[in-house]
């Protein structure tokens, strides 16, 4: 019984790796391949990278990445090849350019604005408390 269970579990493990990953002789190419394919979005199934996806297009793009790596192209050349065809959307890590500044800096901007608002509220409250401790606190109601 246990042997059967173990065999089933092993078989499940094999099935889970059914996506055809390309393998390279050179471990450095393999590492670059893995990094690139995990950073490229599969456009057919937008929440997966082409490394994870089973979609038709993803396997075509994996083959394309493999071919370009074997031709000795650089990572940037491969990324440019993809964005020339599919746009920035294909990259999970969008480029830093004037048109993407809002995207990249919005979190810092929002944190800054929130910080200023919080600081002002706290400053106002401390001023109220210092001047008239008996008055109910105005800031609480806002």
């Amino acid at each position: 019984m246990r042997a059967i269970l173990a065999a089933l579990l092993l078989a499940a493990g094999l099935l889970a790796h059914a996506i055809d990953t390309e393998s390279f002789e050179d471990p450095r190419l393999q590492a670059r391949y893995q990094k690139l394919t995990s950073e490229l979005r599969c456009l057919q199934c937008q929440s997966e990278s082409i490394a994870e996806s089973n979609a038709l297009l993803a396997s075509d793009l994996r083959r394309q990445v493999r071919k370009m790596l074997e031709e000795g192209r650089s990572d940037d050349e491969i990324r440019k090849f993809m964005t020339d065809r599919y746009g920035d959307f294909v990259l999970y890590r969008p480029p830093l350019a004037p048109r993407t500044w809002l995207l990249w800096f919005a979190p810092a901007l929002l944190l800054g604005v929130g910080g200023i608002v919080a600081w002002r509220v706290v400053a106002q409250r401390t001023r109220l408390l210092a001047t008239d401790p008996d008055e109910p606190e105005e800031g609480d109601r806002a």
Partner: protein
Amino acid sequence: MWKYLAPLAGFLVLAVAFYFGLHRNPSVIPSPLIGKPAPEFSLPELRDPARQVSTADYRGKMYLLNVWATWCVGCRQEHETLVEIARSSPVPIVGLNWKDDREAALSWLDQLGNPYVANAFDAEGLVAIDWGVYGAPETFLVGADGRVLYKHVAPMTMDVWRTEFEPRLVPTATSTGASR
């Protein structure tokens, strides 16, 4: 006063942004090819593999490139519309048969009618990658200067044809499909 107005203004900004966000289709990704020269290709013809179908055949002409396959449900859905467009409009429709089975594709055309002036058989999907195709059906409008004018992702409908494609057609640049 601003203490009450500021959150309200913030809310309104978000509400408007979300309202427009709701009506956007996240599966439609703008093509970086619009306004750029259409990628060149030369592929064997679907029915007659000895013949090549190439973008050079359409130099100086306006044409549609329709990406389709028999495994694609949306392509079946739009097929009658394409037949109708081929009948009523002078713009030639070039088919890009994407990763399909040759026999299945031919019997599809024989049974449902053939709106295409020619069909390029892209078995490997390499030309589709060059055109930034990420799902079928997709329809490109290529101008007489060889530039991509418009791309429609999703089945073609007469409504889309009238509102998006027809206004972009230049009457002098279109030629009646010779081999139709």
